[in-house]
């Protein structure tokens, strides 16, 4: 049925094109317009440029204003406020340039459309103008770059010492979370130790690993620095937490990191967005295979007290699966059980 409809549609389209084509070429022969430098179409095209300017300009403003709340994601991290600020400053600057250049680009065709009795102005160069419009963009861009660079330096600076560490490991096609436990130090890992029971490849002979624990969701406290230690087990992935304005590739063989301070708890965000089911999400933004579009993880931002409570309740890898501790020195085991 589809095939038939498409065939009819294509046939129809072709015949319309054909008819339009024949008619207009006959008309142009009759009018003798193919011998003119510019025909009536010149005016039509000139007018169409103006209409295009007005039409798309209206669409752009209308949609940008109407949908603002929809495409502007609420921000929930300290540095996110800064980068969003930069984004909108850049938007303002480029927006002005965008409008001015496009108004000129589409008004000129109308204003200077071909007239037989007019001659174009011979105006090959003007060094002063060239210098002005080299310098002005240069200065404006320098301003944008410097503010961007300052923000970038802050964001990528080493994490504060008291940052809560969370390890996020990407694999096809999921994120695995590991917390460092009470010592706030993640245990060593080695990809060769990976197995069905030890997805992270944690090296349990390292005593820092004794109290490490997994979690099905990322739980982090509001208002305190959090350090994501990011790695990948098989191919490239990328941790993307849109509300946190956070993105960093997960690279096999090369651990990466990103630290930030969340500013709104999940509950607060639910209130702000009016969506009682709102969750912070992590998505993958580096193509990683068939399930690339489905690597979802939830971040729960909670009040610090709640976080402490939750943290204390978690059971370590070894508590959940004592067999992991086989072959580990006894004193280390004790550490794990405490």
């Amino acid at each position, binding site marked *: 049925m589809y095939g038939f409809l498409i065939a009819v549609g294509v046939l129809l389209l072709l015949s319309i094109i054909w008819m339009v084509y024949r008619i207009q070429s006959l008309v142009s022969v009759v009018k003798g317009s193919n011998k003119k430098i510019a025909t009536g179409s010149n005016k039509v095209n000139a007018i169409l440029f103006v209409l295009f300017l007005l039409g798309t300009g209206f669409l752009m403003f209308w949609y940008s204003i109407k949908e603002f709340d929809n495409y502007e994601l609420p921000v929930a991290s300290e540095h996110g406020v800064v980068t969003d600020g930069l984004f909108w400053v850049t938007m303002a600057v480029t927006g002005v340039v965008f409008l001015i250049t496009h108004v000129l680009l589409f008004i000129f065709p109308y204003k200077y459309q071909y007239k037989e009795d007019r001659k*174009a102005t011979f105006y090959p160069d003007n060094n002063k103008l060239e210098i002005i419009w080299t310098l002005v963009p240069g200065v404006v861009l320098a301003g944008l770059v410097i503010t961007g660079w300052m923000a970038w330096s802050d964001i990528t600076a080493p994490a504060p010492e008291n940052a809560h560490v969370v390890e996020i490991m990407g694999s096809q096609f999921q994120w695995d979370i590991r917390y460092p436990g009470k010592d706030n130090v993640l245990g060593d890992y080695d990809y060769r130790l990976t197995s069905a029971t030890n997805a992270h490849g944690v090296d349990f002979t390292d005593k820092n690993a004794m109290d490490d624990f997994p979690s099905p969701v990322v739980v982090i406290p509001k208002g305190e620095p959090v350090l994501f230690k990011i790695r990948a087990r098989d191919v490239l992935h990328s941790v993307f937490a849109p509300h946190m304005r956070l993105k960093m590739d997960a690279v096999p063989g090369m651990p990466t990191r990103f630290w930030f301070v969340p500013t709104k708890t999940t509950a607060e965000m639910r209130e702000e967005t009016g969506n009682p089911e709102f969750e912070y999400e992590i998505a993958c933004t580096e193509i990683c295979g068939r399930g690339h579009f489905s690597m979802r993880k939830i971040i729960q931002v909670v009040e610090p007290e709640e976080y402490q409570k939750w943290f204390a309740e978690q059971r370590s890898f070894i508590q959940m699966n004592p067999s992991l501790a086989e072959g580990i020195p006894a004193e280390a085991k004790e550490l794990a059980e405490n």
Partner: protein
Amino acid sequence: MSTASVASHETAHDDHHDHEHHDNFVTKYIFTTDHKMIGKQFLVTGIFWALIGGFLSILFRLQLGFPDMSLEFLRPLLGGWLDEAGKLDPTFYLALVTMHGTIMVFFVLTAGLSGTFSNFLIPLQIGARDMASGFMNMLSYWFFFASGVVMFISLFIPTGPAGGGWVVYPPLSALEQAIPGSGLGMTLWLVAMTLFIASSLLGGINYITTVINLRTKGMSFSRLPLTIWAFFLTAVIGLLSFPVLVAAALLLIFDRSFGTSFYLSDIYINGEALPNTGGSPVLYQHLFWFLGHPEVYIVLLPALGITSEVIATNSRKPIFGYKAMIISMLGITILSFIVWAHHMFVSGMNPFLGSIFMFLTLIIAVPSAVKVFNYLTTLWRGNLIFTPAMLFSIGLVSFFISGGLTGIFLGNSAIDIQLHDTYFVVAHFHLVMGSASFFGLLAGVYHWFPKMFGRMMDEKLGYIHFWLTFVGVYMVFFPMHYIGIAGFPRRYYSWTNFEFANMYTDLNMFVSAAAIITFAAQFIFLFNFFYSMYRGRKATLNPWRSNTLEWTTPLHPGHGNWPGEIPTVYRWPYDYSKPGAEEDFIPQTVPLSATPESNLPHEQEQVKLEMEIMKEEEEVLVANESKH
């Protein structure tokens, strides 16, 4: 500006035009060494690939815009890539995205654009009989053709074509366990790309050599049309950057087939720990983008060159700031090599490197801005004739502005954290590089069609084609900015898994519908192109009343381009609407001494020198005559 140039070519082509070439079908249309025919071969092949690349994008746009739609009617074509419900397979979706990118960037916008117009226009506009090496030129096309054959085959193999994105980052592209496309499909991709690079290099060496050595008398670098400047610099960029992609590909081949670990390290996949350690996937990204970023300008510069020529001609005005345009292009050429890592701000590379590349990247926006202002000033107080080529050129400038400005967001590493690999990026490069270059290609075809085939394309169909495409492209790519600001990641088969991204089903539907209409509109062009080739109105010798040399050739120039002497050039190519001149254009072949009424003060001084040289030449000619 020296009018005197070495007249060494005099002897070289003396024996050339004495005898006619008698070509048979094979030497004329297939293994031809005539640059004009090779240009047309590139063009037709490019159009073929554009159709395939465009069709692939329609397939994945159907998935994105109408996720619940059954594609059952495409089963004869897609076969096993559809599940029982008629839905596209997610792996094949990735393969479609990958092939769309590869085909469009390399086969259409590099070979189809640069290959077509560098070949066709360089000898015609600089006044040469042919390329420096016709044979290498022929090889260049046939390497490209072979590359296309290999890539085409890869579309139909059971494991599917390469599916790791057009950037084919390892380890995904290195491990067959990770995605089926990384098996045979990826091998074929690498073979095809190697052949393609060979083709590009053969072409590039030829373009550079020809421009440097074979310019006709009087055609100094400061009198070259901007098209030639653009093709020349494009070839330089290609020559310097493509070999790096070979290196990247070679190391990838080693990793894939010979157990090395250039890019692989610490991998546990499918229940197995691989032995590779010590490699770095980031190394590949550096190597890839060392080509990948200049590639953007390989694609864009020829389009800008074509636009400069078309806008000047149809504004009946000299291009504003000819020297500034050249300096900008030179600036872009140089800077294009030192901005590559702005594709990698969040790849895990040292953030300090990110700062450096942010500064360098935003510098490259300056020459781009200068070019835009110069285009605008060229239009200002012109006498504009809207040929289809002119419309497409104005469209190009619009895309260049829209897409260029969003580059300022992405080049800023702090802002890029959020926008990287979202639809904002997709919108950005499809406008500034994809659509702009595509419009340059179309402008070039409409403008030089009379020279290629001796006939005119139909203008009205050209107008319809332009307006449908221009509006269509904006309707496809402008909404993607909103989707990107909202954070939608690219290369996603569907967004329904995520709460932050599951709105906008309506907008995605709109984009897909617009894409289908825009794609359909290209068939108007196809019809116009092939119909006009045989049945179009006969062209006049200089239909656009243009100044450049190609319009001084016969309607159907033979191999060798000019039946007699190659014309000498006496002025720059942009003497349009010169005050005092009777016509609103003075071709490059008109001596300054013939136009005393319109000469500028400094040109009046050159007239004397010009007269001297012409006299000397005459003496040489007379001397030669008497020898015979």
